[in-house]
């Protein structure tokens, strides 16, 4: 009935896209591809994606209920498919749930302000089952830690060792999302090697459902606003509802957070929410060395300063050996160039 054109937004159209999003209390951020629905000269709908995440979705009030959403989202999904993305997620307001459900999306978790749905081939229950099977872990009761380890420090080692002593079995999830200076492969292998003497500790990838840009988009964008409460709660609920029961996790260890407000809010969300899924949360005081709290951000600062003598006091040999090796050159350069 209308001559609506669905296509990629061109550079000079982004101001209009932003205006439409603003009318819907949304902002255009970190979008790798933006589509628009155009009728004559008006932009009446928009949708974007970045990686596996469909986002920034809005349709102008007077064109709602005419199937535009379906066309926009289909265009985005087709574009993702072309780029080899077959599993995708969408964060949206609860009032949009039905639009996505009609396209075969399933609710992962719905909270007060934000709802996470998954579509395409992704299936949280299956993924977690596969993650568990691949880990080779048994059904015994476990303690869990979720760490980014950017990079692996003596602080991480201390808390893993504490968990190892106090638990029958420990599983360490390393955040998979590659938005940190140290790439996942490096972060993962340093921890794995660095705790190989602790026989009851297993180090595995955190996958798509633990602090990923799907469960927790703001973890990687360190700005503080009210969305963070929504996201920290979402991640905590997903851990409690889906991951803990499959892995038989009864306790989660968390390090105290003196610097980063986002992580502090995340800790508070875990403390509040996980016990309702029968997962105990223990806050562990961070260790200090010569008056300084041992943290990965502190270590990155020392790298930036080129202070490799002091670094030795904060990181285990495995991380130090990596840092002075040829392989670390690119990473160190990137840290030095950070603002």
């Amino acid at each position, binding site marked *: 009935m209308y001559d609506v054109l669905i296509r990629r937004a061109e550079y000079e159209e982004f101001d209009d896209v932003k205006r439409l999003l603003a009318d819907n209390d949304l902002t255009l951020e970190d979008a790798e591809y933006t589509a628009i629905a155009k009728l004559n000269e008006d932009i009446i709908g928009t949708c974007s994606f970045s990686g596996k995440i469909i986002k920034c979705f809005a349709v102008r009030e007077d064109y709602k209920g005419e199937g535009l959403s*379906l066309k926009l989202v289909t265009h985005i999904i087709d574009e993702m498919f072309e780029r080899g993305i077959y599993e995708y997620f969408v964060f949206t307001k609860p009032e949009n749930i039905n639009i996505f459900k*009609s396209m075969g999306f399933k609710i992962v978790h719905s909270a007060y302000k934000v709802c996470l749905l998954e579509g395409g081939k992704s299936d949280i229950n299956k993924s977690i089952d596969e993650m568990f099977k691949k880990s080779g872990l048994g059904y015994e009761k476990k303690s869990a830690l979720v760490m980014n380890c950017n990079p692996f420090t003596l602080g991480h080692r201390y808390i893993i060792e504490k968990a190892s002593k106090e638990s029958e079995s420990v599983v360490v999830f390393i955040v998979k999302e590659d938005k940190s200076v140290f790439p996942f492969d490096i972060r993962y292998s340093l921890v794995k090697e660095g705790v190989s003497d602790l026989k009851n500790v297993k180090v595995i990838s955190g996958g798509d459902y633990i602090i990923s840009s799907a469960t927790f988009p703001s973890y990687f964008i360190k700005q503080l606003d009210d969305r963070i409460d929504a996201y920290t709660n979402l991640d905590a609920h997903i851990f409690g509802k889906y991951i803990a029961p499959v892995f038989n996790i009864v306790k989660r260890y968390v390090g105290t957070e003196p610097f980063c407000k986002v992580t502090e809010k995340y800790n508070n969300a875990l403390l509040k929410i996980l016990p309702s899924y029968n997962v105990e949360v223990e806050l562990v005081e961070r260790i200090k060395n010569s008056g300084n709290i041992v943290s990965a951000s502190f270590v990155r600062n020392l790298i930036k300063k080129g202070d490799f003598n002091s670094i030795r006091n904060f990181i285990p040999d495995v991380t130090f050996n990596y840092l002075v090796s040829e392989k670390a050159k690119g990473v160190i350069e990137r840290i030095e160039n950070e603002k």
Partner: protein
Amino acid sequence: MEIKRIAKCGTFESNDIYVIVEPNSDGGVEINLESIVMKQFGEQIKKTIDETVKSFGIKSIKITAKDRGALDYTIKSRVETAIKRAL
């Protein structure tokens, strides 16, 4: 015949079905179906998909389908086209 790559066919429009086919590393025919009429026609839709797969003599395939109330003819042709694109 063998499924060599991932391919899709269909849309999310009403009365259509969206089908993704891909190789199945575990072997066998695996069908993951979501449908708005799952309770009434879930089994029938799966049967139609399965028969279409068998008519190609395909032994190993993974199918993800999102159904919006498609008729048998539609299901059959969407699955068939997706398979042909994946060969």
